[in-house]
């Protein structure tokens, strides 16, 4: 996905992945939303007449559709299931409630089983409070409508330690003895594994750096007419003259940092501010920007 300093042929990314909306704060003009009315025709079942009804959408804010990825535990059952379930019981005995709050994906790839066996296995797991949110690697003929949905495209994450090894790998800031600790653990691992890229050369006019996976750090300037699109935060250790779009895949926690702010456009999580709307006192200064509700906030650094 990441195109390092490649010439972008497509029009700027605005609106292709997410629609940008102007940031709302006191200073800014708000975008005027037009009230859409939907007119539908249907045949009334009672009298057989064609009815026209008009549904007026009172709340005109657009629905935000977001993608988000979560870490799920993947269980890979092995045949015969009896002994595998016995092992699972042994593991669960060591830590009561290990599976209680965890979303579990069942990986049945390569298993030569019938639909009946699969239904039985899901039932057995259900008895053990293992909540299955999806099936990976299952032939479509195996799955019925009442089973968890098929999942694909999972990305590998670090292995999750079983309960026996738990105290050793626990993060120091996690409360000991708290039953919620097993949940906290995968999160801390996810933070460690969050991808980021570092670019050591100036980003020139006409170039785009697109990195939906995470943070972008630029140890140079971003020229007017250049564009940085990051799934996470954007750090510019130089002058930011181009466009910076942080949290482009829907991340309201993303921030933009730069050593000198001269940007043409700033966007976080789809909310944007153009150069005109940036408060003059931040121009030319080291600034960080973040999102507070529907408004982009700025603060001078140092």
């Amino acid at each position: 996905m990441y195109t390092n300093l490649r010439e972008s042929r497509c029009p700027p990314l605005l609106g292709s992945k997410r629609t940008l909306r102007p940031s709302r704060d006191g200073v800014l003009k708000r975008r005027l939303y037009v009230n859409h009315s939907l007119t539908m025709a249907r045949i009334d079942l009672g009298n057989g007449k064609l009815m026209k009804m008009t549904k007026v959408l009172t709340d005109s804010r657009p629905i935000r559709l977001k993608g988000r990825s979560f870490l799920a535990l993947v269980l890979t059952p092995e045949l015969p299931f009896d002994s595998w379930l016995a092992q699972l019981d042994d593991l669960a005995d060591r830590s009561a409630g290990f599976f209680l709050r965890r979303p579990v994906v069942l990986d049945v790839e390569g298993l030569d089983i019938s639909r009946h066996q699969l239904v039985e296995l899901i039932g057995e797991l259900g008895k053990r409070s293992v909540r299955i949110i999806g099936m990976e690697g299952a032939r479509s003929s195996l799955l019925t409508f009442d089973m968890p949905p098929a999942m694909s495209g999972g990305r590998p994450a670090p292995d999750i330690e079983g309960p026996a090894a738990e105290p050793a790998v626990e993060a120091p800031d996690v409360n000991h003895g708290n039953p919620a600790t097993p949940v906290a653990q995968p999160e801390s691992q996810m933070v460690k594994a969050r991808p980021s890229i570092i670019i050591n050369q100036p980003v020139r006019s006409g170039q785009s750096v697109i990195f939906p996976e995470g943070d972008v750090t630029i140890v140079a300037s971003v020229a007017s007419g250049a564009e940085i699109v990051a799934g996470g935060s954007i750090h510019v250790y130089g002058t930011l003259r181009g466009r910076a779009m942080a949290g482009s895949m829907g991340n309201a926690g993303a921030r933009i940092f730069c050593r000198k702010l001269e940007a043409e456009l700033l966007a976080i999580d789809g909310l944007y501010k153009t150069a005109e709307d940036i408060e003059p006192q931040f121009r030319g200064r080291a600034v960080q920007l973040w999102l507070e509700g529907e408004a982009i906030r700025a603060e001078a650094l140092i």
Partner: protein
Amino acid sequence: MGKVIVVTSGKGGVGKTTSAAALGAALAQRNEKTVVVDFDVGLRNLDLVMGAERRVVYDLINVIQGDAKLPQALIRDKRLEALYLLPASQTRDKDNLTARGVEAVVGALKKSFDWVICDSPAGIERGATLAMRHADIAVIVTNPEVSSVRDSDRIIGLLDAKTVKAERGECIEKHLLLTRYDPNRAERGDMLKVDDVLEILSIPLLGIIPESMDVLRASNIGSPVTLADSRSAPAQAYLQAARRLTGESVQIAVPGEKRGLFGKIFGRRAA
């Protein structure tokens, strides 16, 4: 093997052709065998600026298409023995420039010349990308105003992406030539300052050419400014820039500034 220099800018009218002719003549004045190649097919000007417009028989397109041999198309300058011109075609369009043809011509020129100077057309289209394609060194001609600086920035990006050197993973040598610099207007704030331009483009400075009537006069009499009046301010600036291209270390004088700052600006590489 000679070195290939592309004189480019993105924006038109900033002084690419004037600079290509002046630098070519300045290098030839040092007895280094130099050829200046006009890539501006359809809008050729270099032959006029070099005073060779009445001696054009064959051109770059003829050579690429095999209608003429390279030595037939080369025009030797009447004033300087070491200076040659390969003119562009005025009647054909840029589609006749082919990647393979340009590669063959530039490759052949490199063998027999010390310097091959490619005068790029404005824009970022075919002509401009082919002119920079085989360059070892790029001279980016910029005026001290925002649109020119932004276009130059775009061109620098292309130089780092689309040249043979860049594709091989090497870095093309880039130099900034600031032209039409008017100290009075810079003083008044009507123009970008030298430091501002350097900060934005972050490439080393090759020279600052002052805005001068001498440039226009030289171009009207069909002579590179370094030949027309080598004592004029722009000629001196071009001659010094040429010396820097050959690797000499010469201090850069900012026109209008009497002293100081020179050392600070020369060779500076802004982050």
